[in-house]
């Protein structure tokens, strides 16, 4: 099941919207993601950020690392704030301006889910990017409902007991036009998805896996490797769901055992063999389920 649906070769064309000099950690996957998101969205864009690592990355007043207007709104309101901006722009005859939200997993899976669900149900015309580093990393690594089972965080010192919430299926269940997963391990795929989302009207949701150097515990030169391993071991398959039904798998597992991914992260170093086997089972089961969904509702590219 290797890279089943090849993304057609895509040339990355960047506009300089995200600038150097920001205060993300050296090697941060979120900064790299932002570069490709913002530089693909282009200058005709307004951005929304809730409290998260996005605050320091954007920079303190009077500085900004982004050459687009940004509103730093409240933690739970990214989606509704973005909708407010879009509707106001529409009322002002500026419906062509892109409105994007750039939130973390705490702001999306947890405190912002209610607002996001409403915005998706209304199919408000925004693109919502969830930068998923699988925990509250900006406050020093606490668990979110995106934290995977058995992962160490400061609020789950013995390992998290429950499974990661499947936000992609939740968003797909809203039957919005576009839901996708992406990661900087596959940059051409990431840019392709941002570009594709940009051309669609309505609520679009892109989940980006952000391997977190501090929160997960791995060397800073391993960010891209970790992002690729997440895909290749099947932990984070790259796929798209259109209108809640049409599944397209872009990159899936390549038969690599999960241990290759887990053993490189400090948050998993306490795992027993049985727990690793359990995680492997869960990943395999999730992948089979995704394949089934894709075959049920597939939208074969010819």
């Amino acid at each position, binding site marked *: 099941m290797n890279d089943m649906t090849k993304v057609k070769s895509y040339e990355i064309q960047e506009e300089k919207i995200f600038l150097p000099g920001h205060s993300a950690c050296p090697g941060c996957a979120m900064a790299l993601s932002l570069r490709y998101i913002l530089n693909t969205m282009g200058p005709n864009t307004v951005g929304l950020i809730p409290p998260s690592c996005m*605050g320091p990355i954007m920079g*303190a*007043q009077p500085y900004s690392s982004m050459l687009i207007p940004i*509103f*730093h709104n409240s933690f739970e309101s990214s989606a*509704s704030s973005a909708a407010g*901006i879009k509707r*106001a722009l529409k009322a002002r005859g*500026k419906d062509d301006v892109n409105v994007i939200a750039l939130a973390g997993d705490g702001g999306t899976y947890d405190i912002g889910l209610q*607002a996001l669900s409403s915005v998706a149900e209304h199919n408000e015309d925004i693109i919502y990017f969830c930068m998923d580093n699988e925990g509250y990393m900006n406050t020093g690594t606490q668990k979110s409902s995106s934290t995977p089972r058995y992962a160490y965080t400061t609020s789950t010192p013995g390992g998290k007991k429950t499974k990661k919430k499947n936000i992609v299926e939740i968003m797909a269940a809203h039957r919005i036009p576009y839901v996708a997963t992406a990661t900087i391990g596959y940059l051409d795929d990431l840019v392709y998805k941002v570009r594709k989302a940009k051309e669609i009207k309505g609520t679009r949701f892109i989940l980006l896996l952000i391997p977190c150097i501090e929160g997960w515990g791995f060397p800073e030169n391993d960010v891209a490797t970790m992002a690729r391993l997440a895909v290749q071991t099947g932990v984070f398959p790259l796929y798209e769901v259109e209108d809640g039904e049409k599944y397209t798998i872009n990159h899936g597992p390549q038969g690599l055992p999960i241990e290759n991914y887990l053993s490189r992260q400090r948050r998993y170093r306490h795992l027993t063999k049985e727990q690793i086997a359990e995680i492997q089972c869960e990943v395999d089961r999730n992948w089979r389920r995704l394949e089934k969904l894709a075959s049920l509702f597939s939208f074969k590219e010819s």
Partner: protein
Amino acid sequence: MRSTGSTMLLTGNHAAAYGAMLARPKVIPIYPITPQTPIAEKLTELQLQGLLNAEFITPESEHSAMAACISASLTGVRVFTATSSQGLLLMHELLHFASGARTPIVMANANRTPAIPWGFWADHTDSLAQRDTGWIQFYTESPQEALDTVLQAYLTAETVGLPAMVIFEAFYVTHCLEVVEVPAQEAVDSYLPPYEPEVKLDPEVGRSFGNVVDQKMYFQHRRSLDQAMERVFETARNADEQWRELTGRGYGIVEKYKSDDAETVLLTMGSISGTAKVAVDNMRKSGLSVGLLKVRLFRPFPVQELRRELQGRQRIVILDRNFSPGCGGILHQETKAALYGMKNVPPVFGYLAGVGGVNVSPQKIEEMVRSALRAAECPVKSIWAGDE
């Protein structure tokens, strides 16, 4: 659109909705809650009839409604919303946001008792609990005043760059029908110019809002908020005066009723003022020198005006339809603080009158005044009163 003003039989809710319609808001994020819902219903009806041309957002909560109000306002459009009680309390976090972002949102609030116990009754506690959030607060007495104040609130809010609440009580005002004069659109257009802020969220403007600041910058932001609040007194007075010139109706930021020569002055807010005016008339007939001041603008608190009006009186009797546990009546406490340090400060009697929406009759108000007249000394605490 009507070319001339018209007279209609309207509830407080519908009057506020007509007021909002006349302001031509561009975005209306709104969430239903008793007893405010008829405002939302009337606005959608007016939209369907083509009398209103706004983007409606009907989110999943009042919190999201306020979030959308703030971001839409920052994007440079006039915004209206309405809420009540639990909804207002849910918005609390974002009320601070709205004033910090200097968004001149106008919001109607139908006062209702906060749970629990559950109730739907007239009580100012919900909005008074927001008095430190940086919103201008107008308390109104009747459907006509609610309509008039929505437009005065827009002019005031947009002039100083602060959000404003127009407040009236559950059922006593929200569902009370009265003859209301709805001004002509052209008249309102001449009163309230289109909202066109220079700084807004727009790629062509290129400005951001809400970045992290250092302590010094935060200090400066708060101080400029204070300066804006200070400008409200004159701005709101002028807005009221211009409205009087336009429609013949004006109230002042503190409305006076037979108070000029009164030895005893009643101090009220909201719908109880009408009842208290009847009580004043009755007491005057029996030879008592009583008058009334209605605090219409509660935030910013009209300290100078109250000091000027209340200095040298025999006594002040305050009716609070609200309750701050551990403190008492909020108007009582604020008025005492406002008068502190002044020469010839009269004794200030505070009554918790009508808390929970209980009926307060003119007779009851008369009893409170007579009891204050008899009192050998003035109690420090607010006194529970009303038909419990």
